[in-house]
């Protein structure tokens, strides 16, 4: 049986099909989850995709956080289920307090869609194990509220515990503190990432295949279990 990875669709999710495609490309079976679901159906890992859940109204991710499926996901994530939030998914995970900090308006105050270089600084998570420590990858960043912020104490804690999963390697595109592009929870199973690895799985439609590692990593983590 192939490993089954859930991809949640919230009202306004946009990159759900792309995340599912990336899961399939990595060799796992993508399983759609609906925001109204109250059952994670024994899935081995779950992705919260990019998009504008609930129109990004109020704050990005603020309303999606209360979707029924989140009632299942939050305890499962606390119990160790591998969860990846990409872009809007990252915002939802922060709003749900599964990840520290918050994402705010880009420093330039404009939405940007741009290929960026990102350095993978923590390869111990189920989502990044297939990368080399400090490997630089090219991925698409596309967001209007991608600037990561946290209070100084939290930042210090993240740095000390190695919870910064990825940093922007080139010029800081959005004003994120410490060039942070992605973080994880203490246990390491929940990862949030602002750029989109699912848009970097094929040189035909993206900057290359550097993003595939997130999806092969989790597949391996599931098989290894």
């Amino acid at each position, binding site marked *: 049986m192939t490993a089954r990875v859930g991809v949640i669709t919230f*009202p*306004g999710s*946009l*990159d759900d*099909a*792309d995340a599912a*495609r990336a899961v399939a490309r990595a060799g796992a079976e993508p399983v759609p989850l609906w925001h109204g679901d109250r059952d994670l159906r024994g899935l081995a890992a779950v992705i919260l995709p*990019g*998009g*504008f859940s*609930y*129109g*990004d*109204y109020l704050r990005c991710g603020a309303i999606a956080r209360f979707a029924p499926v989140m009632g299942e996901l939050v305890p499962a994530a606390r119990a160790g289920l591998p969860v990846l939030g990409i872009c809007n998914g990252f915002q939802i995970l922060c709003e749900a307090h599964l990840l520290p900090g918050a994402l705010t308006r880009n420093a330039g105050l*404009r*939405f*940007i*869609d*741009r290929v960026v270089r990102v350095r993978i600084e923590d390869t111990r998570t189920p989502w990044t194990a297939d990368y080399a420590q400090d490997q630089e990858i090219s991925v*698409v960043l*596309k967001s*209007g509220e991608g600037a990561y912020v946290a209070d100084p104490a939290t930042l210090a804690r993240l740095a000390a515990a190695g919870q910064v999963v990825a940093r922007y390697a080139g010029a800081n595109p959005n004003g994120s503190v410490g060039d942070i592009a992605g973080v994880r929870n203490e246990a390491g199973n929940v990862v949030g990432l602002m750029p*989109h690895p*699912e*848009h970097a799985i094929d040189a*035909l*439609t*993206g900057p290359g295949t550097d993003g595939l590692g997130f999806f092969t990593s989790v597949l391996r983590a599931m098989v290894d279990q």
Partner: protein
Amino acid sequence: MSGADTVGRAAATPGQPQPYAELGLTSEEYARIGGVLGRRPTDAELAIYSVMWSEHCSYKSSRVHLRQFAESAPPSAALLAGIGQNAGVVDIGQGYAVTFKVESHNHPSYVEPFQGAATGIGGIVRDILAMGARPVAVMDSLRFGPADAPDTRRVLPGVVAGISFYGNCLGLPNIGGELAFDPCYRGNPLVNALCVGVMRHEDLKLAAARGTGNQVILFGSRTGPDGIGGASVLASATFGGSDAAKRPSVQVGDPFMEKLLIECCLDLYAGGLVTGIQDLGAAGVACATTELAAGGGSGMRVDLDVVPLRDPALGPAEILMSESQERMMAVVEPGDVDRFMDVCARWGVLATVIGEVTGTGRLEMTWRGEQVVDIPPASAADEGPVYQRPIQRPAGQDALLADDPAALPRPEGGPELRAALLSLLASPGLADTAWVTEQYDRHVRGNTVLAMGQDAGVIRIDEQTGLGIALATDGNGRFGLLDPYAGAQLALAEAYRNVAATGAVPLAVTNGLNFGSPEDPGVMWQFSEAVRGLADGCAALGVPVTGGNVSFYNQTDETPIHPTPVVGVLGVHADVTRRVPVGLRTEGAPIVLLGRTAAEFGGSAWAQVAHGHCGGRPPQVDLGAEQALAAVLTAAAADGLLEAAHDLSEGGLAIALAECCLDQGLGCQVALQGDLFTQLFSESAARAVVAVRPGSERAFAALAARHGVPVQELGVAGGDSLVVQGSFDIPVDELAAAHTGTLPGIFG
């Protein structure tokens, strides 16, 4: 007075004055309504006729000209639905059909740039959705006054942010468009949006209400007092109210609702729950009900009391005219209504049965239990006034043509040519558009193969077979001014060439015709010439016009904008992995210029940037040469002979080569023959520059010879400079600095 103006009352009070003039109707048109109905219209009926007979909805000034698109259309087996539908539908093979259309939102975008442009995207997306298709991409074609004018600084950032906000939130990749600046658009920006959608052949939907007893369902947002300036005239005239007169004409977009509406409609289609469907755009419920009823040749009864309102104070005329966004209207068989409602509930979309199809042939509406509308729907939807407006070639046209740019001082020698290239490359109309295009999500849906910065946007349709489409929009107001017939053909030729440069076979055309006032005979001459040029051009190239949009009254006081037909061409890629990008990528790849170059500077970017000049004749149109060039480009792409291809347009070879270098940061060395200035900056049409895959030189030369396309070997790709031998060289970094600095310098 209280209560509504009912049909009974209208019959009993024939002499009651009505504000038809404020609603934009002439006294002849008003009299004609009376003739149709055999009595004066009720206020609600007057609202319907005034919007349906408006220029925007009835095409009363343009219709006699637009006919040519159908009459001289080349025979095309690919056309599944043509002009007259919400959007044209084209067969692209493998059972897929594509629908695409341009729409303008010029005036609203000037009044309120952000919301105006945002709702422009929303409107065109619903048009595509109404055909039964899944919208898969958008494009935007933008024109503003001078880049550094205060007006432009106000309008441009708002327009771009609005398109970004709405399109990104819908999850539709933006795959291209245009950005141009000219003083003629000061106070009259052009905001034209294009949407393209994909469906299986059998999914095609039409806007027709058929089947007596079928239910009419309004779904999506509630109806509020949006964009009903006209109806509030009515309300205040009738009720003496002052509140209503203050109602806004600005509509606010809710892209989240539209996203839900898209998914909801696609589920409804998949479930076979819809027999007819229409989007609500301009003229809202009035337009949707009359067009559905007229389209089906049926009657319809509508209860306005059940229309869900955001503002309970709205009266019948206001409900009918409201332009509240994100609404659709469907015709549903009674047995399917429950399932229809279930699908809407799943997506959180409000849906209400507001009426049913009847066999009476009349459109009847009630409000508070009384009949307020009783009309033959076709009289409003299809039988509006048609005008043959006076046409007069402007007196100054000959002087304009005689103002030959040959008299302008030209750069001479390497340093001057070098400086001319850099200043063109840095001019706002040719500078890097990243400030704009980075605000658009081009990656969403994961099927974008080529997007901004390339000659055309390319989208993959089928992941298994690689089937895809290419789309480009083009228009050049300066050429349009000098010769609207040729200008329209040059716009068509450029879009056609752009699509072919990526390797796609051009298949069909849409257009947005942006002009001044049709009541100005000079403008009407420009319009008729442009339509004739486009129709003739499409016939010559064998690509039918499938639909489009007309925007008149783009003028400040007496000065109209340049005639600006924006032409969109759709092409097909049998296999998108064969697409050809713009950028040079291999050292030593031979660079070849295709086509013939003459000294053609009328309306050129060089004349504009260097001298602020627009006069003389636009470049010669040679549609046979365009066809041959496209044939070479598409065959070469299919055979894998090319590494890069870029069409020549504004700024000529100089700008094309610079862009080929900038894309991947690889330089080139070229040797040009003859007059260097002409070689570099002329804007002769039917040309492209290509980088041949090393090893394919002979095959490519044979291909070009077979199609009779002139070939000029220019040099090779490589190095870190653009080198014009014996004249100048410019490091790619310096090109990049000139190219990228301009828009951020102006807009921050």
